[in-house]
């Protein structure tokens, strides 16, 4: 076991990693914070809402989708869960939002991270986005999803039942 070589590599590589992350994380956080203060999220939401009719999504679904798309599921969790609990979004819309986000979320941070380690930006950004759009569109169109949605008062088919569910669609 070459301890010296290991120690050298661990130290150099470790520092390089931290530097690489700092170069991305700090600017990204700054940009996101600026975006927050300029209320860019609201403007994007207004802009995006009509486009979401492509998937048959309601206006209420726009905000969680945009938050998850930009900030990611972990950061956007609060918004997404709140939207679900408020009962203002149908189970169908929630499913589609979940579907879209699972294929493509946190585009700013995650993409930057992988570009920094050498991935092809076109594929990881364009490819993911295309995948999300195609997948969500196809599912939104099939009879399968319509058949899943309960016509009776809001109750998700599976998983946790949100408290205080709203009136049926």
């Amino acid at each position, binding site marked *: *076991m*070459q301890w010296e*070589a*290991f120690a050298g590599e*661990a130290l150099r*590589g*470790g520092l*390089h*990693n*931290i530097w*690489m*992350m*700092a170069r991305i*994380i*700090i*600017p*990204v*956080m*700054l*940009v*996101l*914070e*600026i975006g927050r*203060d*300029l209320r860019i999220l609201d403007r994007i939401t207004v802009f995006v809402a009509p486009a979401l009719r492509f998937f048959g999504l309601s206006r209420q679904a726009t905000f969680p989708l945009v938050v998850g798309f930009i900030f990611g*599921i*972990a950061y956007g*969790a609060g918004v*997404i*869960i709140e*939207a*679900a609990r408020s009962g203002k979004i149908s*189970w169908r819309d*929630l*499913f589609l939002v*979940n579907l879209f986000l*699972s*294929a*493509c979320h946190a585009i700013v941070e*995650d*993409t930057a*991270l*992988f570009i920094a*380690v*050498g*991935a*092809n930006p076109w*594929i*990881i950004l364009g*490819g*993911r986005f295309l*995948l999300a759009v195609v*997948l969500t569109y196809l599912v939104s169109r099939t009879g399968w999803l319509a058949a899943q949605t309960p016509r009776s008062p809001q109750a*998700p*088919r*599976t*998983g*946790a*039942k*949100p408290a205080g569910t709203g009136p049926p669609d």
Partner: protein
Amino acid sequence: MLSTATFKRGLHKGLFTLWEMTKIVIPVYVAVTFLKYTPVLDWIIKACAPVMGLFGLSGEAAVPLVLGNVLNLYAAIGALTSLPLAPREITILAIMLLISHNLLVESAVSGRTGVNGLVMGGFRLGLSFFCGFLLNLLW
């Protein structure tokens, strides 16, 4: 409205996030680097190469792949930077990980929004494999 407070907050959040990520990335990086100097990594490479080959990846890519799914992206990055992977491999791995990572936490979030977390997790994993396979084929 922009102000100095905006930049202070951004910087503060940036440093905080950096610290949180460092706490994960560095130990993982050191651990994987350590394994490189032992026969263990070679053993992992040999064992995983056949399956990884389906996605055009070398055996050692299994390490970031598993870490990314069980832990999170930063653990995967920590492992990835220690391993000699070609840019093409990194891209395929990136797509697979971007679709399916942090399954435990993110499935829990999905679960609380009314979609079965287990189903979502399984779906993402499956989609990840499918896309890795497809990308390897087409690119």
